[in-house]
């Protein structure tokens, strides 16, 4: 439902408040393909499943239901760059659509603020919109600076893929859509071990050592595969692999030096946008990647 080229934009707390470069890259790419993102007034935390769902289902369902009703009023499907938000909002949407007792409970909560869940919209993630709505052919036609010779390791992010009955996006064990999206830029998607391994991010506030040990495993495998960079589709995975990469190196006395890109950042470069335009405010510098691609940078 909703106009095909318009979506209710739900960046999520982490992207809007901490990682606006992801928002910028998404907006530039989607705008180039004629997709309009409409601001969701008053919407916010999806809510984050680890803190709220783990603490109480009613609170979680009430807040997620509230965000869904805002998009329903706008009559647009939701588009988010964050698999956490994607997963939360799709799970809540599905429960509220299919489980009449949950819907009744949520609507009792929502009635306190004059809202009602009707079940009229869907929730999409950037990667899915690019792959299935815009399509590889159209993206291929927009590539001005093919990323030839770049060896990319893709990391999908658990909450983009699983539970697969909720995400309905790809095979959870052998996903391909992000690899296809990488190949269409002219880059190579390199095979590597433990590709669908979790980033470990969700437990970083509970057990940092275990969280880092999980991320380390992936970083080592990516390095062993000889990839130039890691491409993610999730802000939380970006934090774990980019923001925390130096801390993980320090913890284990190892060096990985793997630049991390959110997928649309890489696509922006392939579509001929400058490195300055994407505002790459990451921890791990991408100089080697840019030199390999012959892209000017400071």
């Amino acid at each position, binding site marked *: 439902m909703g106009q095909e080229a318009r979506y209710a934009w739900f960046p999520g707390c982490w992207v809007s408040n901490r990682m606006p470069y992801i928002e910028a890259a998404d907006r530039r790419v989607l705008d180039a393909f004629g997709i309009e993102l409409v601001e969701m007034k008053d919407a916010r935390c999806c809510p984050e499943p680890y803190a709220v769902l783990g603490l109480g289902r009613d609170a979680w369902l009430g807040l997620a239901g509230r965000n869904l009703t805002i998009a329903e009023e706008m009559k647009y499907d939701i588009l988010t760059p964050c698999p956490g938000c994607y997963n939360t909002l799709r799970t809540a949407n599905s429960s509220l659509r299919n489980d009449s007792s949950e819907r009744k409970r949520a609507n009792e909560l929502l009635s306190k603020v004059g809202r009602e869940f009707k079940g009229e919209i869907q929730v999409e993630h950037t990667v899915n919109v690019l792959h299935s709505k815009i399509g590889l052919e159209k993206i291929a036609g927009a590539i001005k600076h093919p990323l030839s010779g770049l060896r990319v390791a893709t990391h999908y992010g658990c909450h983009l893929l699983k539970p697969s009955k909720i995400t309905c996006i790809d095979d959870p064990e052998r996903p391909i859509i992000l690899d296809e999206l990488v190949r269409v830029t002219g880059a190579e998607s390199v095979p590597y071990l433990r590709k669908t391994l979790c980033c470990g991010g969700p437990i970083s*506030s509970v057990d940092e050592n275990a969280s880092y040990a999980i991320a380390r495993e992936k970083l080592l495998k990516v390095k062993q595969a000889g990839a130039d960079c890691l491409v993610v589709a999730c802000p939380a995975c970006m934090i774990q692999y980019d923001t925390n990469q130096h801390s993980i190196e320090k913890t284990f006395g190892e060096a990985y030096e793997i630049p991390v890109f959110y997928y649309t950042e890489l696509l922006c470069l392939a579509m001929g946008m400058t490195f300055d335009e994407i505002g790459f405010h990451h921890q791990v510098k991408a100089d080697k990647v840019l030199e390999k691609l012959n892209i000017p940078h400071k």
Partner: protein
Amino acid sequence: MGAGEKLRALAEDENLRKRLAGCYQCGMCTGGCPVAHVKPDYNPRRMLEAIILGQYDEILSSDLIWLCTSCHSCLERCPQRIEVSELLIELKNLAAEAGNIPKLLLERAKRIAETGESTPVSKASLVWREKLNLPPITPVNVEEVRTILQATDFPGWLERTRSSANGTRS
């Protein structure tokens, strides 16, 4: 009803019995678990076994329950289609009610309840947003968030658990 009783009720619940009836302890959930791989004490198969055997207190009092990342590998791979990770979320709910909850997690939940956001706006990102020509961040209607939460047991629960929260394990 206390958390222990609630878990007992959950375990005796016919639905849960049905959900767990097929578990033959093959260990596929643990084999594919990213946490178990780096921390062998954490073992989803053993948690299911404990529920089946009625050893609820052991699960609810252990801080291991909070180590599940909800990556849902176990849910996808279980040959008996037991939704292990979803079940673990229900157990986290119960553990939290019993006062077993990591401190930092409680703080994050509190922030969401008070501001509607899981993380505050960083100064750097405001500068970046301007440089990147992004529109201003739309304000959140915190009143609505609070009103909804007030109608659940979330605030009382935050109050109850505040004193008993665990420190961070690292």
